């Protein structure tokens, strides 16, 4: 009981310190005061609305969703997954723009050194910055919730799907935000940090599927049970290759949405999947990709923040 009280006390202290973090307060105040936040919000909602209108037009030109209940449910699912996909795209490309100038911008505007000679710990500076970015992303997601709510008019979406997809959006924002913040802490110029952040985003969104395809193709040839170059090694090598392929694929946001959503829609599974082997072996079990995805992005984000703290602490010359 005493241990629980101590843990709760410590947690309360951490939350209290976080709420009083001067960088967080300054960032939120500054962000809401400026025009940029409203421009981003307007642009984000405008694009999302436009995209959804296009999806709706295309779908209704092909199928009459009033024809039967099944068509209506499908309409709800199409809208939901389209909005989630678009939100994911926005999060991946808006978060670096918010984070890549967070620390390098302080350097460029010559305010960084004023901060570094105060008693503000580097940890508070970095966590204040990432918290402000996350709060802004949450604001964007909340602002877009009416679009998501449209899908509930048609049905076909469960609260579990809604929760899992929003959890994925948040960990994606955290992962990409933290990595961009680390680039910002390392770079003297925001332009360099932005370039690195967007290169990273492109690798994770475009590079990973290409790498997965390449690994899967090679593995299928090498470990195939019949005719494979290394078939003599046994099926466990092929099974190992399957796990590697799925692990790599689970770092890609869009592949993760597709596989997680597909498994939920087809057989209602949200925790474990039964998948066909890439190397021609038997069916294998793998956690639903959103689970390794969450673990990967949280871990990557935490490592990036630790690096950012170290780079903030270290004098540049």
């Amino acid at each position, binding site marked *: 009981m005493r241990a629980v009280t101590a843990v709760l006390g410590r947690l309360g202290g951490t939350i209290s310190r976080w709420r*009083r973090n*001067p960088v967080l*307060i*300054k960032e939120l*105040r*500054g962000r809401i*005061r*400026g025009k940029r936040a409203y421009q981003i919000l307007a642009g984000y909602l405008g694009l999302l609305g436009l995209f959804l209108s296009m999806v709706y037009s295309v779908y209704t030109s092909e199928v009459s969703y009033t024809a039967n209940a099944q068509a209506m449910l499908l309409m709800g699912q199409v809208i939901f997954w389209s909005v989630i996909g678009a939100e994911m795209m926005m999060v991946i490309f808006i978060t670096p723009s918010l984070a890549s100038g967070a620390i390098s911008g*302080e350097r460029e*505007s*010559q*305010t960084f*050194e*004023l*901060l*570094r*000679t*105060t*008693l*503000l710990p580097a940890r508070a500076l970095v966590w204040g910055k990432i918290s402000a970015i996350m709060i802004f992303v949450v604001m964007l997601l909340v602002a877009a919730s009416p679009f998501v709510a449209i899908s509930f008019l048609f049905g076909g979406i469960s609260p579990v799907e809604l929760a899992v997809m929003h959890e994925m959006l948040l960990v994606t924002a955290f992962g990409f935000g933290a990595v961009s913040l680390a680039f910002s802490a390392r770079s003297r110029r925001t332009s360099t940090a932005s370039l690195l952040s967007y290169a990273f985003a492109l690798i994770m969104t475009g590079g990973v599927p290409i790498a997965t395809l390449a690994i899967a193709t090679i593995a299928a040839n090498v470990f195939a049970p019949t005719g494979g170059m290394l078939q003599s090694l046994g099926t466990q090598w092929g099974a190992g290759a399957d796990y590697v392929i799925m692990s790599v694929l689970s770092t890609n946001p869009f592949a993760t949405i597709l596989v997680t959503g597909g498994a939920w829609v087809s057989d209602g599974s949200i925790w474990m999947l039964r998948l066909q082997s890439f190397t021609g072996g038997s069916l294998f079990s793998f956690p639903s990709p959103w689970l390794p995805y969450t673990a990967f992005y949280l871990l990557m984000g935490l490592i990036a923040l630790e690096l950012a703290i170290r780079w903030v602490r270290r*004098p540049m*010359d």
Partner: protein
Amino acid sequence: MSVDAIIETEGLTKRYGKVTAIDGLSIRVEKGAVYGFVGPNGAGKTTTMRILATLTRPTAGKAWVGGYSVTEEPRQVRRLIGYMPDFFGIYGDMTVREYLEFFAACYEIPESRRHGLIDDLLELVDLTHRQNDMVDKLSRGLKQRLCLARTLAHDPEVLILDEPASGLDPRARIEIRELLVELARMGKTIFFSSHILSDVEEICTHLGIIEAGKLVAQGDVASMRAIWKPERDITLVVLDGPDNAKAILSDLEGVSEVEEMPCPEGRHCLRVIFSGDDEAVSEMVRRLVEGGVRVIGVSEAERTLETVFMRATKGLVT
């Protein structure tokens, strides 16, 4: 580290690649002193200040503030210092009061104390009437005063100010100078650099001259004047032709130079560069009078830091 020194460096060296910004610098600033750190551009003043402010790591040597090592115990040093760089940015999207509140929070001032503290700081720098204005609407002089208020948020013992009056108009410069005098009166140790030697002369008790990364002179202002400008610059006003006076003066011991200067009609002014005490000056006047020179005025030019500076430095840059 010496007992009564609040800032001390020992063999402080900083190299950037092949360029040596400061080279074996050993300075000592006593508690309560107003230490003017002067030197030509590129002499190493800013580098020294950045090391003392824990922003730059020295390549070699040691530095302490209040007995704490700037490299080993930077947090304790930051508690003691208020640092104002020569160029600094501001958060333009904040009001003057919010700006000070932000930095007070960064200096871990409890929320309950912040309001009163900020009122005091605003009053000290005379910005109370502008407290709700956005920072980017302030003039450069007011921004400078605001930045100075920021450095005082945690009531530091030592102020490290890099060119606090640079780029200011004469009025703003005088206001900053008066603020520094007030802060010195409050017992703060002030370590500041400046190009404006008249400002340094007016407010500093001690002086350090740096050139090409090396400290060429250091001490209290009076002794620096005596060491670096031992000669006296005396002007004599006489009624007769100057030749007789020139001849007498040239024969006197300690006179290194005699020259005639422009003077009102009917009078002759002679500038005498002379080494000697007040007795020797009196003796000089007596010899002139005995030699038939009608002396009607004797005055002495003040020994300015400008002369000390020009003599101590050789015009070298790193």
